[in-house]
């Protein structure tokens, strides 16, 4: 426990009221007396309490906002607009499964295998809803060759074009989105944007349009952060192209990669695909 004199001294120090000589003696005491130094530290922490009270109040506010948003998002609004399409796919898949099961019971023990059903079950396209990967990278400046993205009219125009495609994508106007993105790729200066990200999004659009070959070709051009997911979607496209051997090759790589977000799904899917060993 410190004395009243020391307590007052620390308070005066925090208020900046010490004379030069007092301050020098104070600093010496902090240096040589660990117990006193700790006492000073506790006083300093208490002095920060008003600021920290504001910070803790802000945390509570953010928690409140997060809670409100969770409560507001009813199950129907959580589901993204592309879900109905997936559900139709899943429903169609379930019908196929039932038909398959019927055939299996009627005509013997041969295993029923449905690429359409597996695709609908595993593709997970609802995870991708926009072209933000492009913007995020652009902000980091990693794809821009010495150009400040906030200041060039050309890049602002590119950004607006991609936002327009994004908006079409979110409205499920995939044909128009495809047209605009293909035209963007033809006309935009390839040094000024991430081709990889644009190809990734073009691949997604092709998947929605069921243009499997084009999707696989687009995903093959993807590099960097999005490559892992691009590999997954390439495998999905190969399943729909009935090129299961190519799909299995890719899925094996994913299944062996413990950092891949689809590792578990790849393992499951490999168990359901024909064995190409």
């Amino acid at each position, binding site marked *: *426990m410190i004395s009243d004199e020391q*307590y007052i001294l620390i308070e005066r120090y925090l208020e900046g009221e010490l004379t030069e000589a007092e301050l020098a003696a104070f600093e010496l005491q902090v240096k040589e007396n660990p117990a006193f*130094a*700790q*006492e000073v*530290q*506790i*006083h300093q*922490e*208490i002095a*920060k*309490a*008003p*600021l*920290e*009270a*504001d*910070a*803790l*109040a*802000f*945390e509570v*506010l*953010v*928690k*409140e*906002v*997060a809670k*409100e*948003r969770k409560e507001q998002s009813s199950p129907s609004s959580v589901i993204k607009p592309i879900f109905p399409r997936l559900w139709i796919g899943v429903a169609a898949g379930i019908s196929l499964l039932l038909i398959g099961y019927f055939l299996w019971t009627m005509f013997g023990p041969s295993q029923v295998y449905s690429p359409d059903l597996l695709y609908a079950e595993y593709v997970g396209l609802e*995870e991708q*809803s*926009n072209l*933000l*990967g492009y913007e*995020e990278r652009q*902000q*980091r400046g990693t794809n821009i060759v010495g150009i400040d993205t*906030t200041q060039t009219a050309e890049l602002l125009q590119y950004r607006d074009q991609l936002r327009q495609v994004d908006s079409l994508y979110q409205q499920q106007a995939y044909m128009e989105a495809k047209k605009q993105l293909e035209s963007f790729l033809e006309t935009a200066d390839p040094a000024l944007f991430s081709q990889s990200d644009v190809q990734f999004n073009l691949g997604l659009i092709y998947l929605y349009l069921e243009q499997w070959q084009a999707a696989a070709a687009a995903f093959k051009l993807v590099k960097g*952060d*999005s490559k*892992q*997911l691009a590999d997954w979607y390439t495998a999905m496209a190969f399943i729909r192209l009935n090129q299961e051997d190519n799909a299995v090759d890719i899925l094996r790589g994913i299944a062996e990669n413990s*950092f*891949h*977000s689809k590792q578990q799904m790849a393992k499951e899917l490999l168990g359901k695909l024909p064995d190409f060993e």
Partner: protein
Amino acid sequence: MAHPDDRLIEGIRQQDKALIHEIYDLYQSRIIQMVQKKGGSAEDGEDVFQQALGVVLFRMVQRPDFELTSKLYTLLFSICKRLWQRQSQKNRRETITDEMPEGFTNQIEQILEDREKASLLWQHIDNLGNDCNRLFDMSFRQHMSDSEISEELGLQNKGSIRVKRTRCKKKLIASLRSDPRYLEILHQVA
């Protein structure tokens, strides 16, 4: 020249709820996507976003030397990335491969330590008993002046407040000194 995101920064400083909602609308889904790309779940992404905004960003923008040199999203993204790296490391899912500037990561670590200390400090304040708790609440949380506090507590002069505050502060210091968790954090930071 004003930064385009100054409005959002000011909203954070002023604890403007509508603007916090706007920041969620603008950025949360992208952060969730980033966390998912790095092997986390959507819920992990929500938690990281909440911590980045609620704990780290607020304290950053409160600093007098804070200056936004990139887009707000870029800063938020970097904070979230770092928080997710820490989380992944904790869960032993991966080791941190750090390409971020040391000054930036140190600042985040410092903020998280400050937050831990502050949280413990307020636990002790809340346990001090009615009188002291009320005094600190008016003084620290509500930022009331000594005159306002005197009036609120029905005290005759400001001197009484000073005596009362000293008594409560000593009580708080004794309480903190008796808490090994608090002393450990102080020791780590020192």
